[in-house]
């Protein structure tokens, strides 16, 4: 049975691109175009893996990541960040948000800068969907 992967990105092209890559290795993919929509989908149907963009309207990836990682229910879901911004910028923005919560936030399971390279990206995803 294929694993469920949620791809969160405001660019529908990226969702199409990434789902094409992931369907090749038998994943069931769905997409969400912002953090809010993603949160609703996660609550309805818990995915096995989340591919998350950082810069998005409404609920940004930075905030969604934090919300998931402080949630008892969802913090075990692995998250791969797929973003145009660098990993350091992402970590810095998490740091800035940490004022609002006491808990330390774990680093993402993997960090991939856009554009994803299909072969390499497949390998990274496979670590979490075996």
């Amino acid at each position, binding site marked *: 049975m294929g694993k469920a992967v949620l791809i969160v990105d405001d*660019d529908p*092209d990226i969702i199409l691109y990434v789902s*094409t*890559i992931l369907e090749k290795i038998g994943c069931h993919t769905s997409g969400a175009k912002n953090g809010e929509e993603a949160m609703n989908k996660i609550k309805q149907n818990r995915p096995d893996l989340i591919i998350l963009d950082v810069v998005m309207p409404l609920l940004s990836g930075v905030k969604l990541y934090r919300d998931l990682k402080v949630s008892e229910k969802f913090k075990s879901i692995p998250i791969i960040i797929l973003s*145009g*911004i660098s990993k350091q910028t992402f970590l810095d923005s998490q740091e800035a948000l940490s004022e609002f919560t006491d808990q330390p936030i774990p680093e993402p399971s993997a960090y991939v800068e*856009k*554009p994803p390279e299909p072969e390499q990206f497949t390998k990274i995803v496979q670590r979490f969907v075996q």
Partner: protein
Amino acid sequence: MDPEKPRKILVVEDDSDMLLGLKKLLTKEGYEVETSGDGIQASELVRKNFYSIVLLDLKLPGIDGFEVLKLIKETRPDSEVIIITGHGNLDTAIQALKLNASDFITKPFMKEAILIALQRANEKIAIKKKLKEYTETLEIKVQAAIVEIVRRQEFERRLIQSSIDGIVGSDGEGKIVIYNEAAEDIFGFPPAEVLQKININALYPAPIAEKIQRDLAGQIAPDKPLGWKEITISNRQGEEIPVRFSGNIIRSNGGTIGSVGFFHDLRQVKKLEQELIRSERQAAIGQTMASIAHYIKNILSGLQGGIYVANTALEKNDMDRFKAGWEMLQKNTNRITTLVKDLLNYSRARDPEYRMASVNEIVQEVQNLIEPRAREYNIKLTRNLDPNLPPISLDPQGIHNALLNLVSNALDACISGRERDDLEVKITTAQSNKSLIIEVSDNGAGMDEEVKKQLFTSFFSTKKGKGTGLGLLTTHKIIQEHRGTIAVKSEKGKGSTFIIELPKAEKAMNKGGQYGKSGSDRR
């Protein structure tokens, strides 16, 4: 005894009966009385003692009474001398008064006459005493005032010297009389070569020196002081030095007595300014590079994704997915085209062409251009133009582009706004005393604070790949070139209003006819 009354009195009289009578009377009046019957003895007494008052008979054995009077006035100028003369010797009396006798009484005299004469002498003594005291106090005061003036002069001299601004003062002819250390730093001439030696013409830039000289000479009605302005002076070494200058003519009692100039050295400030501009420019270039790289990276993602999706679809013979991949390729190719166009548009080295033009006509043109698209989306496009708007000097093409950009943005905001049927974009023109006001408002999507903050930064766009984020930046640049301002009011979900203010007073850069006549060749 009255303390004001002089204690000692000398009576000089050769008639011994009268002498005795006078002594009696004066003693009774409270005086310490000494008497003498002849001039020689009297002279001796006057040399030895001081008498406040001397009663002196002019007809004396031995020496003449006038000699005694002269002696008293020479040796004891503070003694008052009352002359005793025979009846009818008025000439003698007058002569005595000329020799500074204070009064005279005539024989045979009455007690009252003596007392009045004494009283007058006493008053004279009191006045003299007061005058003396007053003179002495005055001397002390003058002395103190001189000390104070010297102290103040020294203070002012040091004040001028210690000023960090260069101060140069001239007399009424323009000759330099004040030249402080800071002025020396700026101009480079040692004070010895300047003070009392040269004229302000040798130091100041010609136009300023001429103006000051004119004002000093009072040939024309002197106008306001020369307010602070930035000028460049050239110093002794011929170096150009930027300074902030302010000057004034010094007037006193309606006349001009000199001039003063203040020079604030701007070398350090200019250096820092340049460094700041350089570092800001570098930061801006770095930021722009990063933004462009990021933007291109996104397009690259789309292109790579499109190829990958299309290839995968071909393998599976999945035509729907192939179409999706192909569309990705098309869309991202368009994004590159738009990016390049906007970049060129922004960086295009086109000199604005200023001429007198009507803002209302430009608004109408923009409206005509946008109208079809507005109708397509069922958005009402209205205008409310002030018919009395004066033509102002502007770059018609620049303003056209700026307005077109704002109006298309407003339309986009309506299109991406909520589903409603009363969507409207409104263009308003108005005027205040100093400026023309153009407002473009919509009741579309509106913006939150986050978006508003990033509005005029490059590559910020909310249009999901359709915009590069350079449009508002370009608009901003155009309005800035017109020395105008652009402001925005917006509320998420309610709409936005962009307000442009263009100054009326900007002078035309070049001549030209009314805008609109040659407007058709613009594209």
